[in-house]
């Protein structure tokens, strides 16, 4: 299994040197990559349908519990087949769709990267590995959504999607680590044995909440749904791939994967039912107001994801089977509709359903595919959607307690709107009279309409003969989610019962709604008025606030003036030191213990004070620099008096060189300018005096602190024994703490290279001008 994931990643890498080849004649190779993986996973179907699972374990960082553990069961196999199967279609379609695009090879690189990440995600059997792939899907989808990177909208949508899903990933990893700590293992298939421990743990609600936020952001649940309509800025094949079978289903996959481990409790059910239920109604109603085919599809996708979350929240046997079937139902018809939209857009240059009509006359196979997909989305008998919808009603009707009525009503409302939305996108553009402008359209090449047609035919085939997929979905997949045997068969005909009645109501009312509802600019604007309450608006406000805040912060703290940085650093140090001094209690100074002053010290201090006065008062820079070096020399003399010859020597030479450096730099600067006002000078004086005072107090205090001399004694005793040196300071520098010295020299070298390159590079660029 690892090799299937690596296969995609390696192909991505191969596209870097071979990219120009696939632009021309080699492009047929591309769909073969997902196709071969699809066939590989297809071969697993009989075994998995019979109830086996396959595992592969490779150690990565065993000490941290992070391993390449992969596991193939009914759930992951369904997703693998969707990812590679629909992926094959998308690759085949995009070959033609993007023909001649300058970044053709890059597009397929991103797409392969994304596909491999998705495969990794659904196959991982390790919590942290799952997270790694989860983030990889976020990142690679960022590149896909922002593929048209010269458009500002596109960049913005990509960033929104990345921010929302990335934030979700952050919550998710916290949740996963919590779960792993409670259960004591990172292996997902091992978590099931700790189910009771996890559910009864006091942190269970928290872990669950974090997990939910991860899933909701990825699967575009309210209030995180808004990144999905924005992501429609991506090229249509990307939308079709991301929003039918892969990216947004990752959240559903996560919930399904954790259902047997954490599901079935009130903490699990209510949030999912409320969020899923609200999302599906909200998005389904919203879809009715859209005029852009892609926007309609985006909102119906959110609604469909809501349905899935809702079903997983219900958690009954019926609901799980319904969810398993609906994943495939939705993937098939939604991919078809997206691809059809792509063709219509490609041929007519418009996606506005109020302008498009009658296209069946010029694009017949496309219209056929769209029609079947729309009917499947509507749930007409003999389409796969019919079975899916039946199962949903069955699940809501058979809920225990007082809920069935309300839940069924919610599902009914959603399905009616979804039906109307599906018709709007799949039927409306193809019926009615053909406008004159479109009369000269021709059918695009076979390679473009073949994929949607095949997918549409599958919608029909699986609907007429549910046995083909039924057993696999209702047994292998549903068992993997449910954690126990489900024993269900998919049937077309259930007899005359409530479910059939509900289906009929859905069809009639939905069709009526479709006929009555005429989306228009006015309606769209009427909806737009509520935007101020939408989560998108609020989050945009929030990000604007963050931008403003960080600008304010940068301007006040990082303003680029060295003097301002110095002031802030010193003030901060003063605050810390005062706090620490205040904590450590009163200061006693025992004057008797201080050594008496000698004449040398007095002389040096007098020179020092004189030099200090000159530094402050002189109007000349050069004088002040020289006086500064006098101060430095005075301090060196102090070191000499108190027997620190090494220090004194170094300080002398450093002082000399610093003065030279100063003079060299001063030479390049404009003549003296008085930049500081008297007020600023006064402020600086206070800060400087404060710092001096604090340091003096500390120096006095240090004298009375008990000092541990272990370290210095060790160095003193062992310098000669271990390192054959008598100068302890040097032995420490060159031997005991040699690694420190090594890195200090590296830092010095970096500084020199920095100065050198800064000045030399500046010279080069000025020479060019």
């Amino acid at each position, binding site marked *: 299994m690892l090799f299937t994931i690596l296969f995609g990643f390696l192909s991505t890498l191969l596209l870097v040197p071979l990219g120009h080849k696939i632009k021309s004649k080699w492009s047929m190779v591309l769909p073969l990559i997902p196709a071969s993986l699809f066939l590989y996973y297809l071969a697993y179907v009989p075994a998995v349908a019979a109830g086996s699972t396959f595992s592969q374990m490779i150690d990565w960082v065993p000490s941290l519990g992070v391993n390449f553990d992969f596991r193939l069961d009914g759930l992951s196999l369904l997703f693998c087949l969707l990812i590679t199967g629909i992926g094959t279609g998308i690759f085949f379609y995009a070959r033609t769709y993007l023909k001649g695009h300058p970044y053709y090879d890059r597009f397929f690189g991103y797409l392969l990267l994304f596909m491999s990440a998705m495969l990794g995600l659904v196959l991982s059997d390790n919590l942290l590995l799952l997270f790694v792939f989860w983030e990889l899907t976020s990142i690679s989808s960022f590149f896909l959504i922002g593929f048209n990177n010269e458009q500002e909208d596109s960049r913005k949508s990509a960033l929104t999607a990345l921010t929302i899903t990335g934030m979700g990933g952050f919550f998710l990893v916290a949740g996963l680590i919590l779960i792993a700590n409670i259960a004591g293992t990172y292996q997902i298939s091992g978590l099931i044995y700790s189910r009771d421990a996890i559910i009864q743990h006091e942190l269970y609600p928290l872990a669950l909440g974090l997990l939910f936020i991860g899933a909701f952001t990825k699967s575009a649940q309210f209030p995180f749904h808004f990144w999905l309509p924005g992501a429609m800025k991506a090229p249509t094949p990307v939308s079709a791939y991301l929003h039918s079978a892969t990216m947004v289903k990752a959240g559903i996959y996560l919930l399904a994967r954790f259902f047997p481990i954490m599901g079935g409790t009130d903490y699990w059910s209510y949030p999912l039912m409320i969020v899923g239920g609200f999302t599906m109604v909200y998005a389904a109603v919203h879809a009715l107001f859209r005029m852009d085919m892609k926007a309609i599809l985006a909102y119906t996708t959110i609604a469909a994801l809501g349905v899935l979350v809702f079903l997983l929240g219900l958690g009954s046997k019926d609901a799980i089977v319904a969810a398993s079937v609906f994943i495939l139902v939705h993937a098939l018809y939604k991919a078809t509709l997206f691809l059809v939209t792509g063709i219509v857009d490609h041929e007519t240059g418009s996606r506005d359903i109020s302008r498009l009509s009658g296209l069946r006359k010029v694009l017949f196979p496309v219209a056929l595919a769209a029609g079947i997909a729309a009917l499947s989305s509507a749930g007409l008998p003999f389409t796969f959607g019919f079975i899916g919808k039946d199962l949903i009603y069955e699940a809501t009707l058979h809920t225990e307690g007082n809920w069935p009525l309300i839940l069924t009503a919610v599902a009914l409302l959603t399905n009616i709107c979804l039906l109307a939305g599906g018709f709007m996108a799949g039927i409306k553009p193809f019926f009615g009279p053909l406008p004159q402008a479109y009369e000269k359209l021709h059918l695009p090449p076979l390679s473009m309409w073949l994929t949607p047609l095949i997918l549409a035919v599958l919608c029909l085939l699986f609907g007429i003969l549910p046995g083909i997929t039924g057993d696999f979905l209702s047994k292998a997949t549903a068992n993997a989610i449910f954690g126990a045997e489900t024993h269900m068969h998919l049937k077309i005909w259930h007899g005359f019962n409530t479910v059939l009645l509900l289906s009929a109501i859905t069809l009639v009312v939905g069709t009526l709604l479709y006929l009555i509802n005429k989306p228009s600019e006015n309606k769209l604007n009427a909806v737009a008025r509520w935007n101020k309450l939408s989560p998108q608006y609020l989050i945009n406000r929030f990000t604007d606030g963050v931008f403003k805040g960080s600008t304010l912060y940068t301007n006040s703290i990082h303003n680029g003036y060295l003097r301002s940085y110095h002031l802030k650093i010193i003030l901060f140090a003063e605050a810390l030191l005062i706090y620490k001094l205040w904590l450590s209690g009163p200061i006693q100074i025992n004057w008797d213990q201080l050594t008496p002053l000698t004449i040398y010290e007095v002389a040096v201090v007098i020179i020092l004070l004189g030099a200090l006065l000159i530094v402050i008062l002189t109007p000349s820079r050069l004088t002040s620099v020289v006086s500064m070096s006098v101060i430095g020399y005075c301090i060196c003399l102090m070191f000499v008096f108190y027997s620190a010859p090494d220090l004194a020597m170094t300080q002398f030479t450093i002082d000399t060189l610093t003065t030279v*450096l100063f003079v060299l730099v001063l030479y390049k600067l404009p003549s003296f300018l008085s930049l500081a006002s008297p007020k600023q000078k006064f402020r600086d004086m206070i800060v400087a005096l404060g710092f001096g005072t604090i340091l003096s107090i500390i120096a006095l205090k240090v004298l009375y602190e008990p000092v541990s001399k272990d370290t210095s004694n060790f160095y003193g005793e062992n310098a000669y024994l271990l390192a054959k040196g008598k100068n302890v300071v*040097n032995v420490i520098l060159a031997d005991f703490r040699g690694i420190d010295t090594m890195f200090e020299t590296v830092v010095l*070298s970096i500084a020199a290279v920095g100065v*050198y390159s800064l000045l030399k590079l500046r010279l080069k660029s000025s020479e060019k001008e």
Partner: protein
Amino acid sequence: MRSIILQTATRYLLPILLLFSFFLLLRGHYSPGGGFVGGLVASIAFVLHSFANGTEATMKILGRKPLSLIPVGLGLAALSMVMPTFFGLPPMTGLWFEEKIPVIGSIGSALFFDLGVYLVVVGVVLTILFTISLTKD
């Protein structure tokens, strides 16, 4: 700005100061001194020479860009650091020649480490100062 006295003096001061810096380097293990101070003194010698005769003249004496001293010094220090691992000892273990050399005393890996530091310091100081002084604006 050229002073005959300074020019004449530096002609003799440069070798003496360099000798002194080397002396500081060698004695560092036993008495005050060491690679860092030695390097600084050597740089001062060159800086003094450049003041008297101009930076170009000093560069001519050096024969190469001071920047090239940095990798040599870093390499020497790093080599003396990892050398013990070739003898199966942990890095930074002091290795010593058994025979003492007259005047200098015993020679060990610490001396080569110090020599590396010395070269890096000379390289860094001269690179910074000469780059700035040679920059025309």
